């Protein structure tokens, strides 16, 4: 864990109206590490992910990605930082008027101007192949099952070869086998490309399998941070109950 930090949260506060979402949250995630964020519903887990990619701004505090403060950066700088990040949304958030292939090609066409149409097609085919959707390139998102949509969303998040991948509830709405397949894909990405993973999940089994460390949020506060074994011995009952497999 001596690698430079991929993500740094320093005294981050976030409120929506009168509701406190994050209350002085600080932590670091090393390069190549997989961190799973757990907690009860409405405790600020997804907000944490959106703060990491700059879709939300904290009320105060610093969020640094690869040592670059994204809270006070310009739109251009934020856009440049985001090019090294991928985000798998809970609902996959595929553009519903595009085919699966076009969903993947869209960022390449806009950001990688040097790529020719044939190179873009090759990159799309290759990435869809990695998630097992190579035969579904021409399908519309509405024609895909929940698990396929998640895999297509993951493929889109991976298309720009991110060094930091943010994943929001990869197993929600999926059966255990499909959820396990998504976990396998995430582990493969982490191993092959040494991608840093930040995963928000309720799935204890998946979190213990994929995560190097687990962060536990409750009522906007970070009440647990460490390996699953360390958290099993936590003094905090909520932490023990959330990370316990039984």
């Amino acid at each position, binding site marked *: 864990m001596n690698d430079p930090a991929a993500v740094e949260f320093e005294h981050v506060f976030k409120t929506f109206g009168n509701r406190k979402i994050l209350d002085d949250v600080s932590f670091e995630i090393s390069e190549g590490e997989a961190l799973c964020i757990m907690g009860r519903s409405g405790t600020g887990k997804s907000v944490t992910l959106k703060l990491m990619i700059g*879709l939300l701004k904290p009320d105060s505090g610093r969020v640094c990605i690869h040592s670059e403060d994204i809270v006070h950066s310009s739109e251009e700088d934020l856009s*440049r930082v*985001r090019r090294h990040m991928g*985000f798998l949304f809970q609902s996959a*958030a595929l*553009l*519903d008027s595009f085919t699966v292939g076009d969903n993947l090609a869209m960022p390449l*066409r*806009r950001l990688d101007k040097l790529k020719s149409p044939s190179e873009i097609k090759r990159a799309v085919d290759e990435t869809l192949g990695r998630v097992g959707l190579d035969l579904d390139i021409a399908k519309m998102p509405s024609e895909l099952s929940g698990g396929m949509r998640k895999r297509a969303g993951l493929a889109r998040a991976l298309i720009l070869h991110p060094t930091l991948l943010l994943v929001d509830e990869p197993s929600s709405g999926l059966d255990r086998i499909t959820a396990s397949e998504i976990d396998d894909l995430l582990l493969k990405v982490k191993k092959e490309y040494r991608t840093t993973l930040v995963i928000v999940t309720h799935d204890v089994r998946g979190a213990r399998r994929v995560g190097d460390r687990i962060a536990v949020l409750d009522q906007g506060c970070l009440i647990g941070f460490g390996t699953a074994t360390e958290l099993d011995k936590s003094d905090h009952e909520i932490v023990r109950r959330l990370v316990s497999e039984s």
Partner: protein
Amino acid sequence: MWKFFAFIGEVSLFGLKALVDTFRPPFEWEFFVHEIEEIGWRSLPLILSAGFALGVVLSMHTRGTLVQFGAEALIPTLQSASFFNELGPLVTALLVAGRVGAGIGAGIANMRVTEQIDAIESLSVDSFKMLVVTRIVACILILPMLTVFMDFASLAGGFLAEYLASHISPQLYLDRAFKTLEWANFIPPTLKTSVFGFIIGTVSGFFGYTTDEGSEGVQRAATNSVVLSSLLIILVDVILVKAIFFFFPRNAL
């Protein structure tokens, strides 16, 4: 009252930002062409059929009155003057506000609610330019073209009604329709629909892009887009007609 002015300010800034972003690269040609097809091509059947029907109806109404004064020869003139000056631009804008405004408002709001806009942003793509600017520019460019179609469809409808009533020849009908019509009766009223297009695109884009509620927000965005666009079109039309009369005084005669 304060909230109302704050809202007007927000919508105006939204539209202004869209205009500035129109000239800022990268240009979203692919999306722009798609919107031209969606807003223009797909609105054409509605515009043509509405224009034709309105032409028939207006001709039938005016015939009853003008015949009493022995002035039925003026029916084509009245028809063209009404549609080219006012009815064509206004009805086209209101129809497009209903069809396209609701679609833009609901479509963008749905993308907001289902996190598709967040997904676009997370891919380092400017969602405002991609989804809002392209639609506003398409509305600005398409409205005058649709207005021309509306004008000529109404003339066709008017001719049919007149032909069935008096067996007037197409040549004579057109002669009478365009006899007193000048370019000033056609170009400024047609071009003013670009302003209506800007209103439709901006208002609908604003309601869709800024929604922060669930499915109820989508529904509200669609409704508000149509209501406010239509209202603004009618109000702004008063100002634009006055401006046209100022710059082309012969139109006011």
